[in-house]
């Protein structure tokens, strides 16, 4: 026990004395969270648009003003030909153009149907469909305001309610994702590097020629990183709750328990990597390319797993972060109980036990 304690003390000394490790462990989670929180938003606001208004009527002016008045759009220019519109699109000055035909107002009031045209720059298809749907919503609102005055009998109104995340805040989605990513990074990458560093520096050679059981050498490496990763979880929760205003709807102890289980699975992965690599660079490559990338791409953090080809969907099941992110979303955002996430919990537990067993088996008692 005394041996184990001095191993842990030594490991903390290594961490505290290396500014890069400290930054990676404590500053990076905060910085990543803040960057994702403030810089990356899926909501698109202030889209520059132009109007080609041939109608020049009261209703066409009302529509234009309504668009310009919303926070999604920003009127750039009143244009007078399609040639001009195309020119503006090409120069990238506008993302959307609203075309109001000459007889729009007459048609609208006489036949009850007015035709408008929306032109969007679809070089980024996601963006184009988002902004056209914003524009359509604004036009709908206008239509409804007309109905109130003109009384058309049959109208179906849909009321959409966004559950759990009423304002469609993207922070709700990425905080759990970032947690998964950061914990994976700290636990797997930093732990594997620190074990492999002992091999590279030759200290492992001395430690092996000592009464300490080799398994203990590796396990003692995991303890400091478990503590630091746990600290990071609390840090992330505090920042996302207080600065990004993501509510913590579920039981905090369930969240911490879930995080600890995930940390353990990532630590076992780190140990496994360290037992099959010989240099710090190789360990970094392996945990970087072999772990971080799949975690980022296949865990559902960026791309929804449901839309992936079947093969990738199957592979994504092997990624611990995927299960962690699903479960933590359920608990943190939806406020669900233990019973709702037992499946994810048991998958994570199974993965941890498997990885830990393999990495302990893999560890060599000799060089």
């Amino acid at each position: 026990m005394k041996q184990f304690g001095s191993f842990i003390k030594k490991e903390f000394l290594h961490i505290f004395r290396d500014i890069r490790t400290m930054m990676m462990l404590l500053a990076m989670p905060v910085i990543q969270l803040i960057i994702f929180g403030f810089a990356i938003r899926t909501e698109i606001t202030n889209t520059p648009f132009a109007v080609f208004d041939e109608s020049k009527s009261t209703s066409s002016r009302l529509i234009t003003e309504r668009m310009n008045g919303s926070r999604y759009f920003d009127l750039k220019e009143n244009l007078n030909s399609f040639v001009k519109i195309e020119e503006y699109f090409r120069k990238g000055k506008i993302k959307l153009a609203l075309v109001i035909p000459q007889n729009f107002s007459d048609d609208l009031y006489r036949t009850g149907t007015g035709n408008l045209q929306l032109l969007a720059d679809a070089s980024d298809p996601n963006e184009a469909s988002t902004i056209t749907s914003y524009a359509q919503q604004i036009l709908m609102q206008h239509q409804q305001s007309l109905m109130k005055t003109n009384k058309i009998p049959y109208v179906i109104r849909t009321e959409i309610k966004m559950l759990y995340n009423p304002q469609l805040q993207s922070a709700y989605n990425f905080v759990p994702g970032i947690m998964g990513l950061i914990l994976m990074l700290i636990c797997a990458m930093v732990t594997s590097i620190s074990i492999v560093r002992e091999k590279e520096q030759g200290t492992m050679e001395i430690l092996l020629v000592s009464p300490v059981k080799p398994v203990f050498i590796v396990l003692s490496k995991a303890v400091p990183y478990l503590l630091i990763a746990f600290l990071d979880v609390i840090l992330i929760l505090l920042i996302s709750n207080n600065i990004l205003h993501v509510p913590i709807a579920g039981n905090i102890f369930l969240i911490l328990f879930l995080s600890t289980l995930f940390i353990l699975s990532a630590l076992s992965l780190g140990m496994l990597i360290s037992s099959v690599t010989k240099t710090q660079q190789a360990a970094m490559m392996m945990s970087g390319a072999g772990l971080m990338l799949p975690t980022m791409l296949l865990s559902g953090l960026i791309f929804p797993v449901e839309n992936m080809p079947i093969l990738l969907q199957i592979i994504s099941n092997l990624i611990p972060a995927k299960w962690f992110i699903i479960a933590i979303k359920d608990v943190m955002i939806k406020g669900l109980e233990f019973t709702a996430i037992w499946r994810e919990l048991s998958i994570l537990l199974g993965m941890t036990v498997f990885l830990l067993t393999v990495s302990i088996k893999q560890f060599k008692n000799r060089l």
Partner: protein
Amino acid sequence: MAMSDFNLPLSGSWGVRISGISKKYGETQALSNISFHVNKGELFGLIGPDGAGKTTLFRILTTLLLADKGIASVNGLDVVKQYREIRNIAGYMPGKFSLYQDLSVQENLDFFANVFNTSIEENYDLIRDIYIQIEPFKNRKAGKLSGGMKQKLALCCALIHKPLVLFLDEPTTGVDPVSRKEFWEILKRLKQENISILVSTPYMDEATLCDRIALIQSGKILSIATPEQIIKEYPQKLFAIRTENNYHLLKQLRKDPQVNSVYIFGEYLHVTFKDDVPNIEAKEITPSVEDCFIQLME
């Protein structure tokens, strides 16, 4: 000489027993059929150039590597079957400086003392002479020590648990001459504590400081004996010659059919002749271990 070691029992009063050890790395034969023993309390030197297989042999004896063939024991314990016990009684100092560079002298010592379930105080008398020399720097990071100081610290760490057998892999490589001398004096004192010491070095001048030496080259033992004996067994008369232009003389002597061997040795040329050359007027000298090594290599 080496063959007679085969018949000795593995356990017994030997610090180290090696019998027919061979090791291959891929196609390279690192060690072939090595046999020798180190007596208890003996300072045994393994002398050979880089790549001779010294480190491989150390790793086999310290239970870090498995040999392909042969058996070995440390203090009567088998290196394969009883590797756990050996790890309690062996002190090992690898060739490369292998302590924590970001920890201070004191922290390194404390850590290794704990690893071996002991404390600095417990075995202080064993390391005192060495520790006193590094104590003024006890708060300095190990990475910031000079080469000689690093080696003294590494030796301290290897001795902290009062090992019965000490393995030192090139402890003086890259160390200044004064520190090297001090280091060997420390080893002499350790010998009096009845610690068996196996030390390797590429420096031939250090060979004479050992009780017995083994000359090793390309994984093969060339000779095992006391340094004096190895020198005595030198088969020819050795002459030292010096002129203003040694290189010119070297070329001339190499052409001479009478000359057995000639090579530059410091400021002199060392020459042996095939037959006793009558009427030669040159300074006859006692061969050094290095001369013996060069002769055995051919």
